[in-house]
């Protein structure tokens, strides 16, 4: 029941989001009522913060360049209030290298882990310190249900604090071109198929897709499959699948894979064909929608993909970019939202580390990044009007209002599946060196037996 409610609510909010981004740019202006709560957090934090001058908190994460700059910027209020220093170092192969650091006994004080599986692994090895009660209380008060669960290890203790999060299953399109062709956002899978064939007959392949991502190559495909699974078997069926109770060889999973492959492997439906998809970085494909004329139109990605759009588009996001949720397949299920995000976990037990993690549970820790764009925050008390675009504000509202969230399935599966065969086997199917049944069998066979 609860899931149903969530699904329909999501669908409702998504429609609002879609409206806000289509022809009329005014509706769904985020209600500034939450601003009061947002402005309370800093004063509260300031009165409670101890003097930590001269202390340093080292933080490791997987994001680099612009995102790292924005993270550092967002940590300034903490540094100013406490005198402590936050030293962030980003590394694209962070998850692999962190394991080496942990084995060697010198991990960063705080790690930003993209995968709940990684958190559970380190927690079971006894490398992590569980969050103190006051931080858990903050999470209970300031996050939608689901985030705490995603930060909880098998021993039932809470280890992870979510800071920047993302919402997936959003289809972005170039608004100017879209309007000139008179397209309308599809609300069902069939409508989407009709729209796609219309685009093909207009001479432009519908989808911009790239799945290269360093050692994580393959994850965009898993996101597609997860979104289709959410839309065909619903949140309960999704949970069973992610937990390993529904095998990959199950017909429902095969159908989901097949739905995605039908689009990806049709040379008319994707820009550049399969060889382009498997070799192109996930961030290099979407800008093809903003050339004149566009090389492709649609990008199914998380909210963060806007940071990969051309600068001129990013500067004018609300007028240049339209968005609709990946349409429903089963109308009784609708379009449940899929989320992801890095969770901060503590490898050190020092006052400044806990002060830092506590800061990450406050909306203040996201404010400068809200303004800079390209990030969503899950805080209930955040000021939605701070977001640089109405798109982001609408996404954030979806997150805050959700009665529950579903975490990215591949990130929650055991690493050998979620970061292994589920990434690698589909690439073999795409490049034609394996058929789908073999791939599904291999993925299932790799699932750890215990």
């Amino acid at each position: 029941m609860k899931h149903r409610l969530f699904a329909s609510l999501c669908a409702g909010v998504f429609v609002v989001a879609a409206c806000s981004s289509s022809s009329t740019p005014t509706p769904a202006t985020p209600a500034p009522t939450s601003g009061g709560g947002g402005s309370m957090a800093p004063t509260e934090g300031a009165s409670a913060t101890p003097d930590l001058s001269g202390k340093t908190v080292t933080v490791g994460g997987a994001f680099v360049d612009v995102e790292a700059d924005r993270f550092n910027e967002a940590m300034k209020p903490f540094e100013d209030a406490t005198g402590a220093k936050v030293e962030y170092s980003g590394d694209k192969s962070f998850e692999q290298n962190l394991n080496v650091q942990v084995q060697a006994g010198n991990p960063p004080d705080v790690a930003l882990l993209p995968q709940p599986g990684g958190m559970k692994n380190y927690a079971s090895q006894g490398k992590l310190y569980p969050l103190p009660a006051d931080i858990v209380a903050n999470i209970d008060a300031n996050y939608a249900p689901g985030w705490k669960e995603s930060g909880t290890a098998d021993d039932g203790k809470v280890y992870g604090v979510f800071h920047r999060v993302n919402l997936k299953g959003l289809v972005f399109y170039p608004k100017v071109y879209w309007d000139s062709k008179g397209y309308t956002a599809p609300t069902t899978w069939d409508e989407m198929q009709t729209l796609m064939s219309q685009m093909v007959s207009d001479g432009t392949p519908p989808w911009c897709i790239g799945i290269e991502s360093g050692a994580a190559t393959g994850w965009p495909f898993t996101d597609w499959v997860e979104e289709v699974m959410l839309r065909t078997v619903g949140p309960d069926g999704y949970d069973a699948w992610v937990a390993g109770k529904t095998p990959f060889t199950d017909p429902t999973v095969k159908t989901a894979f097949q739905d995605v492959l039908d689009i990806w492997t049709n040379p008319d439906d994707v820009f550049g064909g399969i060889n382009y998809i498997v070799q192109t970085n996930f961030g290099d494909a979407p800008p093809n929608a903003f050339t004149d004329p566009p090389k492709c139109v649609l990008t199914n990605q998380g909210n963060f993909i806007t940071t990969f759009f051309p600068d001129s588009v990013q500067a004018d996001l609300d007028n240049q970019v339209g968005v609709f949720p990946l349409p429903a397949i089963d109308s009784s299920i609708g379009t449940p939202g899929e989320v992801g995000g890095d969770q901060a976990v503590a490898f050190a037990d020092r006052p400044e580390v806990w002060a830092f993690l506590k800061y990450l549970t406050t909306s203040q820790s996201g404010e400068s990044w809200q303004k800079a764009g390209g990030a969503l925050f899950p805080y209930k008390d955040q000021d939605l009007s701070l977001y640089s675009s109405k798109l982001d504000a609408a996404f954030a509202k979806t997150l805050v209002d959700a009665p529950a969230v579903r975490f990215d399935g591949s990130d929650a599966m055991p690493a050998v599946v979620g970061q292994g065969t589920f990434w690698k086997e589909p690439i073999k199917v795409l490049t034609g060196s394996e058929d789908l049944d073999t791939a599904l069998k291999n993925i299932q066979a790799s699932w750890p037996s215990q």
Partner: protein
Amino acid sequence: MQQASADVPRRGLGQSLVAGVGRIAVSVFVPIVAFIVLWAGFIFLRDSGANKLVIVSVAIVWGIGGVAMLYVIANWLTEKLPNAWQRRILPFVFVGPAFAILTFYLLVPAVITGWESLLNADGSQFIGIDNYTYAFSNPDFIVAIRNNVLWLVIGTLFSTVLGLAIAVLVDRSRMSRLAKTLIFLPMAISFVGASVIWRFVFSFQPEGQPQIGLLNAILGAFGIAPVSWLTGAPLNTILLIVILVWGQTGFAMVIISAALRGVPDEMLEAGRIDGASEWQIFRRLIVPTIWPTIVTVATTIAILTLKVFDIVIAMTNQNFNTQVIATLMWQQAFTFFDQGRGAALAIILLVAVTPVIFYNLRQFRGRAI
């Protein structure tokens, strides 16, 4: 050093009492003091929060000074022994430290890895040879073995043969120095750096788009459709081997051309007077003379190809069936956190490299005597 000078009066005192007892006391006392000094240095380096520059300087002095001190003390102690014993023990004093370090950093980890390969993912349970069974029944691993064989044969063959050919030909050219520099240049670039460069050679864009990849741009100039070089196995592995050959030919060339200098001119001249053709001189005189060098170069490159990792990760992330044993090992150990399977793959790799190393060592021994 300070301890040594501080001990001098003590020794004098000891000698004036009972010479033998004094000797023994000093022999025990000096190593103990040396050990305490080294240990204190280690504790300081480990725990001190001092300025990084200070720590670095102390580390250098401690490291180099410590080794020198150990040698001096060990040497001084052995010299106190009767001559016959001195001769017997001295070699071990000089080889000992190197042997100890090798044992600690190579032998012990290898043995531990061997043991871990018989344990489960987190090392909590003994599972026998299951990890090896898993490896050899995994289709990805079979492809990895095929790829490693391709690397071994093609990579070693082409690097060595090209290195030899260039060394022989360029030696006769007036532009010898320039040509050698250019060919040696890629040696200075890491394999990851080289891969970044070569990605631009193999880059693929769909037909009708501007080709930023060198190969596809050339094809485009002749009106041929672009080829997706890196997605089709086993061609992609061979193209990755090209990068290794590009990097290693310079190494082979430099070593071989040094050996060519050692070929006596009189011998070549005698051959020419006897009417041998240039090809015969090369085949019958030059190659046999420098054969040990060629073998050393080839085995060195062969070991490199068996361990190859960075090119594969940087170019294709071991997708498209380009995986090799080393990348699978890394994936098991660091992505899947399965220490057992990772260790098993490491041992398989070690076993695969061992014959080459043995051959190489035998060559060395043959030359040394």
